[in-house]
C-alpha cells in the first residue's frame, strides 16, 4: 500500500528504432504529454501489441494496491499490461543542456525502461526500488 511513483500519458513515437531484433519484444519510443518525458520501453508485443501513434497511460507504482481516501484499492484490473521489475539507476547527465535532466533506468526481467525528463518529476524514484509498470491504452 503506497502511492504512485510516476504516471503520465505517453504517445508512441516510434517502434524498434534500431530495427526489429526480437520476435516477441519490441522497443517503443514514446513521449509524455503532461511532463514531457521521453521514454524507451521494451514491451512484449506478442501478448500486448502496440503500434505507432498509440496513446498509452503508464503508471509506475511500488505496489498494485494503492492507498487512497477510500482505503486500499487494487489497480490491477484497471490496466491491460503489468510488469514488475527494479529501478537500478538514476543518472544526472551533466553533459546535456538543462542540468536537471535526469534519466531513470529500470529493468523488468530484462525488459528495459528508460525515462528521461526534468528531475522534479522523478523525485520519488530511488535506486533499488521495486516497481510495477502498468499500461493501458487510451482512446484519443
Amino acid at each position, binding site marked *: 500500500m503506497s502511492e504512485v511513483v510516476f504516471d503520465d500519458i505517453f504517445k508512441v513515437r516510434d517502434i524498434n528504432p*534500431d*530495427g526489429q*531484433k*526480437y*520476435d*516477441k*519484444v519490441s*522497443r517503443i519510443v514514446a513521449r509524455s504529454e503532461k511532463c514531457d518525458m521521453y521514454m*524507451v520501453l*521494451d514491451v*512484449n508485443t*506478442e*501478448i*500486448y501489441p502496440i503500434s505507432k501513434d498509440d496513446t498509452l497511460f503508464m503508471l509506475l507504482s511500488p505496489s*498494485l494496491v494503492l492507498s487512497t481516501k477510500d482505503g486500499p484499492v487494487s489497480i*490491477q484490473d484497471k*490496466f*491491460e*499490461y*503489468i*510488469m*514488475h*521489475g*527494479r529501478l*537500478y*539507476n*538514476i*543518472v*544526472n*547527465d*551533466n*553533459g*546535456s543542456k538543462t*542540468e*536537471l535532466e*535526469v534519466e531513470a*533506468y529500470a*529493468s*523488468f*526481467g*530484462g*525488459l*528495459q525502461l*528508460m525515462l528521461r525528463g526534468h*528531475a*522534479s518529476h*522523478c*523525485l520519488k524514484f*530511488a*535506486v*533499488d526500488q*521495486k516497481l*510495477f509498470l502498468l499500461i493501458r491504452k487510451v482512446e484519443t
Partner: protein
Amino acid sequence: MNRAKPEGITFTKEPYIEDSGPRRIESMKFSTLSESEIGKMAEVQVWKGQYYDQFKKPIPSGLLDPRMGPANKNVTCTTCHAQFKDCPGHYGYVKLSLPVFNVGYLAAIVEILKCICKRCGRILLNEDTHKERLKKMRSPRIDADMKIALAKKVIEKCNKTTKCLRCGYINGTVKKAVSAIRIVHDRSKCNDSSVEEYRSALSHTREPKATINSDTQILDPFQVLSLLKRMHEEDCELIYLAERPEKLIITNIAVPPIAIRPSVIMDGSQSNENDITERLKLIIQANAVLRQELDESSGSFKSLDGWEMLQAEVARFINSDVRGVPFNMQMQKSNTLAGLMQRLKGKQGRFRGNLSGKRVEFTGRTVISPDPNLRITEVAIPIHMATILSYPERVSRHNIEKLRQCVRNGPDKYPGARMLRHADGSSWSLHHSARRKRFADELRYGDIVDRHLEDGDIVLFNRQPSLHRMSIMCHRARIMPWRTLRFNESVCNPYNADFDGDEMNLHVPQTEEARTEAILLMGVQNNLCTPKNGEILVASTQDFLTSSFLITRKDNFYDRSTFSLICSYMGDGMDVVDLPTPAIIKPVELWSGKQLFSILLRPHANVRVYVNLTVKEKIYNTKRDDRKREWKTMCPNDGFVYFRNSELISGQLGKVTLGNGNKDGLFSVLLRDYKAHAAASCMNRLAKFSARWIGNHGFSIGIDDVQPKVELVNKKDKTISDGYGKCYGFIEAFNKGKLSLKPGCDAAQTLEHEVTGVLNGLRDEAGKICMQTLHWRNSPLIMSQCGSKGSPINISQMVACVGQQSVGGQRAPNGFMDRSLPHFPRNTKTPGAKGFVANSFYTGLSATEFFFHTMGGREGLVDTAVKTADTGYMSRRLMKSLEDLFLHYDCTVRSASNSIVQFCYGDDGMDPAGMEGKDGKPLNFERLFLKSKAICPSDGDDGILSSSDVYKVVQEKLSEVGMSKLLGNGVSEDDEMSEVASSAGFINSLQSFIKDKTEFTKDTSTKDTSVDLRKFIKRISGITRRQLEVFLDVCLSRYSSKKVESGTPIGAIGAHSIGEPGTQMTLKTFHFAGVASMNVTLGVPRIKEIINAAKNISTPIITAILDKDDNAHTARIVKGRIEKTNLGQVAKSIKVVMTSRSASVVITLDMERIQDAHLNIDANIVKESILQTKKIKLKQEHIKVLDIKKLEVVPQDADRSKIHFQLNYLKNLLPSVVVKGIKTAERVVISKEVDEETKADKFSLLVEGTGLRDVMGIEGVDGRRTVSNHIDEVEKGKVLGITRFGIQQMGKSVLMLASFERTSDHLFNASLHGRDDMVEGVSECIIMGIPIRIGTGIIKIKQRTECIKCYEQVEKFNHGWLCVPLLIFPEICRPLPDSTSPQMHASDSLDV
C-alpha cells in the same frame, strides 16, 4: 632400515648397527677409479669368455659368475649369501693385457697432453705463471665454472708453448686422430735438431718413404699412461684435474654386478644376455687375442692389431656409437648392442626415463567423456577401474563396519578390498573367499585395509601434454558404471581436453598426507584461475554458453509451470527456490529467461551472494545512442551484461561473461568476492541447468543454416565484382608502371600489398553482409555470437565466400613458370590466379580454387606438426633452467643454492594468480566501487559525503591499516623498502580513483533549485560514508591478501606461463607493426630468439623517439641522418673517363635528389666517405673534388697495363660506398601516430637494423627514450640464453645438467673435475628420491621430545592412530652459509 638377515648364517651376537635416525644424502661426489681401486672393489676376476658350462650353470670366472650376485630368485649370492632380493650385487673386473683409452675421457686426455711435455711430463709453463695460476686456482672464492674457465686458459697458454723449460724437448701439436681412437703427436712444424736427425736417418733406410710419416708420431695408451703417471700433483691441479690423470686410462675394467645386467631366460633352455654382458664378452675375447699375440710375437709391431681391436671394443662398451672404430668391425652385428652411455642418454635413458620420471602404481588410463551432472571437482571412475585401484584405509571405530563389508566382498565385488594388513606387519591377500569372512570378523582397530576406491576419494587427474600445473589437478572420485572417465565439461580448458577419443590418466595418492596436500594445492576448486595472469580457466564452454545465450534472450518467456521446471534443473530437484515475481503479470503471468539467472546465482533469500558486475558481450553495439553516449544497458542488441545484487538487469550472456580467459566475468567475480566454493557451485548449477535445458530445447545444424538468401547472393556478387574491378585497376596501373609506390616497397610489392588489402577486405565485407542477413535462429550464428564455437569468418566461409588462400603470408606462389597453376596465362596477377576463392563451401569450389585451398591447408598442418616439437623443446629448456627458483620467507626470489635472483618478486611481490585488474593491476576499483554502492543502499539523504569528508574517511581508513604515512608526502616508487614502495603505487592509484569518482558531487549544488531537488540530485550521484568505508575496507584487505606466499615455485610457474601459450601460437605469425612494410617477427620465432638470446635476430628494429616529434619535416631530416645512403643512390652518374693523358672515374652527384631527401651531402663529404671505406685503398691525393657535385677518382696504381681493370673495379665498388648515415641501419620508416589526448600527430622513427648506440647519438633523437628490440644491443654484460650452453653456465649441478642434455659429457667432466654437488635442486632431489625443498617442502618440521612420551601413553589407549603435535619452525633464511644444510630432528618413533 635393517637388512634382512641372510639365512644360513647365524651370528652368535647381533652385529652392532648404529641407528642414528633417518639420514639425508647431502651431497654427491664424482670421481674416477684407479686400477687398484677397481681390483679391490671387485670380488672376482673375470677372464672367461663363456657364460655357461654344459650343465647350464654359470662358469666361475665367467661373466655370470654367481659371486657377482644371484642371477635369479632360485639362487643365493655366493659372496654375501643373501637372497636375490637382498643382494645388491658385487663387482668383478677384467684385467686388460695392455692399457687402452677411455673414450669418455679421450678429449680430456688430449687436452692434458697439450699441456705437458711429451718427454718429461711436466707442464709447459714457467715457474712464475705456474705459481700465479696455482694461486688463482686455489682461491676459495672460485667455483667450478670459473675453475673450468681458468683451466681452459692454462691449456690455451700451454698449447702455444712448444719448448719444455725443464728438459728442452720441442713439443708438437697433439690431436685426436680423425678416423681412429688414437692420439697423434704432430711435430712436423717443429724445428728441432732431433727431428732433422731422424729425417736424415730415415732417408737412408731402404723402405719406401711413404709408409712412414716421419713427423707424426702416434701416442699409444701405454706411452700416454707413463706420461700421465709422471705428472706432478700441482700440474694436475692447474688444469683442474681432481685426481691422478692415469686413472683416465683403462687398465682394469670393472664388470658391473649381474643385477644391473640381468639375463633373460627364454623358454627354459635359451638365455638372452644383456647388451652390457655381450659387450664385456667381446672385450674378454679381444683381450684374449691380444694376450696371445703378445705371448707369441717377440717384436712390438705385431701386437698393434689386437690392441686396436681391444681399444675399439672397450670404447664401444662405453659408447657404442663411438667414431673411429676400425672399418672391419663396423659391419658386425654387435653394432646394435648398447653401451654404457646409451643406457644413460636420451629420453628413454636412465636419467630422463628412470630417475627423473618413475613408473608408478595405483594409476589408471582410459578414454574420457563429458558429464554435466558431475560437479566440477568430481571425476567419474568406472567400477572396473575402481575395483583395481585401492586406498589403504586404517580401521578405526568410525569405519570398521564399512571396511568389514569391504573385506567380506573381496577384490572382485565392489565395494571391496584387495588386501588386509594387520597391525603386526603381516599382510594377506583377500583373493580366497574362504578366508575373507574370518578376516572381516577379526578386523581390529589399527589394521589397514586396501579397499576399492569409493565416492569422495581423492585422485589426481592428468592429461598429456602436461604443459602447465593445471594439466594435473585433484578431483574427488565418483564411482560410476560404464567404461569411461567422465568429468564436467567446464574443466576441459585447463586440461585442453576434448572428447574425440582423448585419454586421461588417474593417480591415487596412498597416504593421508599426500591426499591433504593434493586436495589443498591441486584441487580443481583451488585452481580455478591460471597463475599466468589471474584469468579464470575453469569456466563454462560450448553448449553451456549456447544455452545460456538462448535462455537469456530478451524475448524468452516462460509460464509458471515451465519456469518452475527449469528452476528444478539447476539442482537435483531437492533445492529450495524462491520463485520471484513474474516480469510480466498481465495479461498473462510470464517469467523471463533472465530471471532464471537471478535464481541460478541466488536460489533463495538465505544465500548471501550478491554479484555485481558489468561486462560488454561480443554482440554489444559499440555505436552511440541519440546523445552520443554508450548504449550500456539500453543496447539494442542486449549486449551489455549487468548484474546488480545477483539480479540480471540486462544483457544476453555469452562467453565474455561465462567463459574462460576473462577477469571480469561472472565466475571471476564470484571467485574473488565469494571465494572458490561459490564459483564452483555456481558452475555446477549452470552446467546441470544448461545441459538439461538445451537437451529439451534442441540445438543442431543443417544445410539450411548455410544456404545464402537471394539478397546475400546478389550483394556478395556485387562486392566481389567491385573488388575484382579494383584489383584489375591496380594490375593495369602496375603493368603500365603508373602504380604509386608505398614507402619502402618496389612496384611488385606495392601491387601485392594493394591487392591483398582489397581481397582481405572482400571476405570481411562478404562476412559482414552474411552475418546481417542470417536469421537469429541460425545455429552457426548463435554459436559465433555467444562465443561458444566458430567465428564470423567461419560462417562467411560456409555461406558467402572462402576468401584469399595464402602460403607463407603471401598469395599462392608460382609453382610453374610465371604462374601458380597451368590453368592461367603467364604473369597473371588476377585474384583468381593467385588463390582467391570466391565461392563458398556451400556453393562448392572450382578445381583451381580447391587446389589453392589445399595449399593453404597443408601449410597449416605442417605448421602444427613443426610447432609442437619446437615449443615442446622450448618448454623443456625453460623449465630446466628455472625449475629451482622459489620465493623465500624473506620475500626474495632464490635458487636452490639460496642465491638471490630477485629481491622482490616481480618488483611488487604480488601473486599474478590473484590479480583482478587489467594489465596486472591488483584490483578492479571500478567494479568494487559499483559493488559497494550496490550492496549498501543509501537510506535517507543524510549519509552523503562531501568531497572533504571523503578525504577524511580515506585518511582514517588508511591510518587504520598503517598506510597513512604513504599519503601526501609521497613515497617514491624506488624507495629502499620495496614493500612500501609497491604499496605506495597502489595507494596512489586508489586515491586518484576515489578523487575521480567523487569529483562531480562538488558542482551539483550550485544552481538555485528547491531543497528537495537538490537532495535528490545529491542522493543519486553521491556516496555515503558506509559505502566508502566498505569500498576502502575491501580494497585494503584484499590488497594485502594478494601477496605471493613463501615457498611458491615461481620459476616453474614462470616457465609454464611462457611455455604453455607458446604451444597455442601459430608458428609463422607475422604482423604489421604500425607502419606498412615494417614487419616484426612475432609469435614462436620471436620467443625463440629471446629465449636463445640470439646474437642475430631476424628483424632488429630501433624505435627512435625524436626531440621534436610534432613535425614531419624534422622527422625526415633525422631520417636522412640515420638511414644508410650509398653513393649509388645519390649519384647521377659514375663514369669511367679516359682521355689521352689520364684515366679516371668521375662521379656526378644528383643534387636534386639529395635536396629532396634532406640529405647534407656534397662532393667533399663523398670524398671523405670514400677515404674511410677500407676496402677501397685510396689516398687523399687520388680523389679530386672538381666542384660541389663532381669529383674525380684516379686509381692509385697508375700502371698502364692494369689501368682498365682498376677503373672498372673502382666503378663497381664505388656505388656501395656509404656516404651518409649508419652502416647497420638498413632502412628507416617514419611512423605517424595520433596522440590520444591532443589529437596531434606524433612522429617517431623506426630503424630497421642494429646500432642502437649510433642511433642514440644522432642529433635530433632523444637517446633516453630510444629503444631497440635486440637484447644483445640493450644489455651490456653477459646474456645467457636458455639453451644447453646457457644453462651449463648457470651454476647448476651435474645431476641437473645430466638430466637435461648431453648426459654423458657432463658425467665424464664431473668425475674428471671431482665435482662435489649438494643435493638441493629440484632435479637432484627427484633423482635421489628426496623431498624437494620448495613449496610445502620449504618448511622443516622438528619434534619436541616430550611429545613422544605422551604419544606412547596415548598409543596404549588408542591403538596408536593420532596426530603427534608438531612444532613448526619456519626458518627465516638470511643468506647464511649453513642454511643450506638442514637439520632434521624427526624422531625415530615416527617410522614405526
